[in-house]
């Protein structure tokens, strides 16, 4: 008897290389300025789900993402790695969502899937950096959660129980929970498998062509997506039965008031020559002003 697993993944701007240009004046992110990637932790979450699928025959892995049309890239990538079904949750009305509105939309989408056993999230997305969406979604679904999981230790489909190892400050906890439960997976143990070449051949046309993996706010022709509905579905606000007021900006209590780029303060650096004398002089200064000694 297989399990029904749901994995939540996010396409994120690659925050390793951000310039001031990446923010619009209204405080929203100009994602077009950054290359878009599969959120790193979410690859670990997908791997965790795929490993469960390998141990329990008949298990189905469903991958959901909420985002602009170009986010279909992470769904294709999930198919290449072994997902069975994917859905893009996309609607203009989702735009500007904070974590509360995001978790509400994800909850509605999960409920559309119907009965499920486990929900896998990444621990944290590298753009918003909040790690809030997982727990918020669990609360909205009324289910238990285990966060910051490094490893699923065991899973018992008959008893409907999972045992997970969770990292805490200075150590770990081994936690047991019944189904359904939401787990967030960190980057400590799971090594994401690469996309399978065979699956790439099978699914490479499984979606409309995006735009080379960069974010693009323009909306795709949904008719084109519908042709491949068996593996990638497009769900809008009506499909998932979501209340418009609880989505997007209107459903978001937090507002970005101000954004500042972090600027290196290169004030009065004193360059010290690499000689015994110069270093002794520096040490002398530091002792004199009570920094050392």
């Amino acid at each position, binding site marked *: 008897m297989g399990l029904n697993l749901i994995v939540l993944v996010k396409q994120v701007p690659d925050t390793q290389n951000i310039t001031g240009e990446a923010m619009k004046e209204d405080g929203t992110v100009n994602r077009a300025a950054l290359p878009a990637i599969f959120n790193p932790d979410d690859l670990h979450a997908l791997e965790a789900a795929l490993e469960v699928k390998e141990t329990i025959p008949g298990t189905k892995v469903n991958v959901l993402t909420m985002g602009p049309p170009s986010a279909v890239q992470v769904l294709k990538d999930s198919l290449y790695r072994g997902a069975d079904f994917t859905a893009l949750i996309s609607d203009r009305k989702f735009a500007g969502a904070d974590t509360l509105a995001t978790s509400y939309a994800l909850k509605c989408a999960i409920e559309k899937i119907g009965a499920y056993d486990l929900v896998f999230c990444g621990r944290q997305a590298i753009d918003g950096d909040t790690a809030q969406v997982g*727990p918020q979604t669990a609360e909205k679904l009324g289910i238990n959660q285990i966060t910051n999981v490094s490893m699923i230790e065991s899973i018992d489909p008959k008893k409907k129980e999972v045992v997970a190892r969770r990292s805490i400050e200075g150590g770990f*906890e081994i936690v047991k929970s019944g189904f359904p439960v939401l787990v967030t997976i960190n980057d400590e143990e799971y090594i994401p498998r690469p996309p399978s070449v065979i699956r790439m051949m099978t699914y490479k046309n499984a979606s409309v062509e995006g735009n080379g993996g960069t974010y693009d706010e323009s909306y795709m022709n949904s008719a084109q997506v519908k042709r491949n509905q068996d593996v990638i579905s497009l769900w809008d606000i009506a499909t998932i039965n979501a209340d418009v007021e609880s989505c997007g900006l209107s459903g978001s209590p937090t507002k970005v008031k101000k954004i500042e780029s972090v600027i290196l303060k290169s004030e009065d650096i004193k360059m010290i020559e690499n000689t015994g004398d110069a270093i002794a002089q520096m040490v002398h200064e530091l002792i004199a002003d009570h920094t050392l000694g």
Partner: protein
Amino acid sequence: MSSKNSVMVFIQQDDGIVSEVSVELISKARDLADKLKVKVAGVLIGDGVAKKCEDLYPYGVDEIFLVEDKRLAHYTPVPYTKIMVDIIKKQSPQIVLYGATTTGRDLGPRIASNLKVGLTADCTDLQIGDYKFKDSEYKDILYQIRPAFGGNIIATIVAPEKKPQMATVREGVMKVGTPNPGLKGKVTPVPFTFSDSDFPSEILKRLREEKLVDLKGAQVIVAGGIGVGSKENFKLIYDLAHTLGAEVGASRAAVDAGFISKDHQVGQTGTTVRPKLYIACGISGAIQHRAGMSESARIIAINTDAEAPIFQIAHYGIVGDLNDVIPKFIKAFKAKQ
């Protein structure tokens, strides 16, 4: 005495010991509450922890709501959420603060989701100010200041329309106030009845080691990066630290390379430090590293690459091989003593 409109702190305890970040938050809550002319409330959940309350009054908490039960000894999300939601609904605080710890980041979002209020993650500063939005003006709103985008930007977030305004706050960034033994508070035990379904998580095993490395308390930190080259060569870093009476820090790359254990890591995903002196040896100064040490009063950078970004925040820069510079440093310090 009512805690309506108060600034409330979730007081985290681990194995019966109140976490340091909770004391930092009570100190900060006191500041905010004085500006807003309201009280500071705390919520302490656990088993046999009542006696801890006495230790917290001197930092400025007026009233602690206490919930005790055997099954609450260790944090699990479902019962803790239920308790916090109930207390928040009854007490109507205007602000609720949580440490941005594994526990706080597990609990805060569940409460926010239940109450349908905002939650700002991992704040490094909190201020009170006014906010104009469309035609509305909001007075005395909490400015929640946090890094995002991997530390590349600092965002000020507000949630003016709904109460409470909630935030998780990074450990080690708020200063602990000077305790005032004259300050008195009170404990209000809150009775709760639980059913088995309130405890869906069972902790089978729990292993936690008290930190042997005290980076936060250190006045001087000598930190090594990939430039140190090997685990064996970290001895040089230890030698300098030992000479100066300093603690040893490291970059994540040095930790990942196995040169040193993770509890030494400084930075966004390690410890945030603000010592009197931070000596960065063979560390390039990536934004995630700087996020944890740029508030140090003095920074010395030792690096072979004159273009390394660490020099842009350093007060003293030495371009050179650390294998050559550190022995000179040790010699110079010993000579001065």
